[in-house]
């Protein structure tokens, strides 16, 4: 494959990925979508969407941040244990912990409804969605942190800290956490992004009072005018694209740091 053929094909695929994004958000800021951009730009659709669907954005942010906090608190210690232990048990646990990624969200969601749908008011609460997001996102946090832990001399650093007299909390907070910050950042960006966009589970888990951003989007796609759907999609992109860019940046940085070590 010659350079120019390769470049041409690559450009074509890039266009395939990017063009629809541009085409999709354009009606959301165009005064009259049938006349096109010449009719001028407007924030009217954005304001209307925000008035009707602003709540879904806030709920999604609330769920994403809660998911992040929980996956950090639960996932980082788990990754640490998995990195420190080489035995068969640890590998089985690791295998188990990443299983939720491999099972379609709709199956997990249905299971959650069967198991806990009738427990108190849980079904009606946003916490029900949070549970689903935690289950789905936890493996990504564990993996991101585990990858960094395995790439460094964890045992050596910990022994060195012990030799200096550090207790376990001292070495965990002072030596281990600072050295896995990159992995935690990558995992966090991933978790927030996935939670903000999670639809496969959330469609079953939500109620009319707990609609998230993607659920609202699905609703808008079937029920609303193109301008509104586009404006709504634009809001979603404004939230998610910076996160994705940050993720690429963090991954690139991790690669460079890895290359130095």
């Amino acid at each position, binding site marked *: 494959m010659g350079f120019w053929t390769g470049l041409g094909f690559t450009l074509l695929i890039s266009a395939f990925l990017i063009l629809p994004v541009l085409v999709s958000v354009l009606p959301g800021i165009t005064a009259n979508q049938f006349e096109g951009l010449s009719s001028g730009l407007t924030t009217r659709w954005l304001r209307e969407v925000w008035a009707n669907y602003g709540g879904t954005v806030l709920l999604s942010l609330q769920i994403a941040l809660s998911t992040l906090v929980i996956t950090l608190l639960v996932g980082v210690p788990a990754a640490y244990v998995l990195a420190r232990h080489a035995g068969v048990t640890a590998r089985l646990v690791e295998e188990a912990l990443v299983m939720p990624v491999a099972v379609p969200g709709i199956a997990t969601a249905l299971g959650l409804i069967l198991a806990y749908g009738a427990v108190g008011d849980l079904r009606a609460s946003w916490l029900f969605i949070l549970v689903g997001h935690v289950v789905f996102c936890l493996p990504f946090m564990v993996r991101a942190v585990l990858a960094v832990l395995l790439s*460094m001399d964890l045992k050596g*650093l910990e022994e*060195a800290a*012990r030799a200096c*007299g550090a207790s376990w909390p*001292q070495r965990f907070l002072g030596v281990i956490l600072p*050295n896995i910050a990159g992995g935690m950042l990558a995992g966090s960006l991933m978790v927030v992004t996935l939670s903000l966009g999670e639809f496969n589970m959330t469609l079953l888990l939500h109620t009319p009072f707990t609609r998230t951003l993607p659920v609202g989007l699905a609703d808008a796609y079937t029920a609303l005018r193109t301008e509104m759907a586009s404006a709504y999609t634009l809001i979603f992109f404004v939230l998610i694209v910076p996160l994705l860019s940050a993720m690429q940046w963090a991954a690139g940085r991790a690669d460079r740091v890895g290359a130095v*070590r």
Partner: protein
Amino acid sequence: MSVAIKLRGCGKTWPGGTVALHPLDLDIAAGETLVLLGPSGCGKTTLLRLIAGLELPDAGGQVLFDGEDVTRLPIERRNVGMVFQSYALFPNMDVAGNIGYGLRVRGIPRAEVARRVDEMLEMTRLTEFARRRVDALSGGQRQRVALARAIAPRPRVLLLDEPLSALDARLREELRQEIDALLRSLGITAIYVTHDQAEAMALSDRICAMERGRIAQIGTGRDLYHRPANDFVAGFVGDTNRLGEELVRPEQLALHPSAEGEWTVQRATFLGPFVRVKLRDAAGRELMVDMPDLATPAPGARVEVRRRGPA
């Protein structure tokens, strides 16, 4: 401040069944520098880690610091300093941060920590690198940071696991002298692991030669060199000739050209400080003799061999 260390019946069997150490006793005097010497895999690191508190001995083994049983005391409470083969410097801290770590975790006031870190930086000639990231240091500098970090909290005993093995020969020699001077000035009990007999000779008060999980001999460098307990020790600390029952070092022999000499020169190899001459007699026995590069005999020459008098 420095302690006397006793090991009693300390063995180590790994879960897989590998016996890294057969139960052994060892006495190390306060302030002494003991070198653990032996080939790779003979159990030096394991023994050092038992003393450090990074491993537990098999049931029945005991580690005593000044008579106090510390067997079950983990390393973080033993007050030992340790220099690891890979250095294991903390990448998230700069040079000064690494050196001061042991002081900070002990809750020592900041001003005191800063003073002690400055002192350590000066002692190890690292002052200008205080704020340098550790991954931007050369091998020798990293080694000195590891050393400074280990001694900054004034440990009771200093443990060093092949601290120079990652460095090139010149630097190794230079740092060996620095470490030697440091250990003498600190007067600390030190246990130093190496597989390099020259390093062992240069640094040790006593050497503990190890062979396959056992102590082969303990003594001064001279003891091991001149009165090796067995062939293994003899061969490990230098080249030897066997004369009947006796072991003789090549430099303890001298050549004298003589037409009736029973030995024939096979080969003379110039090695810088001396020439190593290989000899053979009619019965096919071989002998190595080291001599100054003066009047070196040519191959084929006949010579007599005599033992040198005490220098």
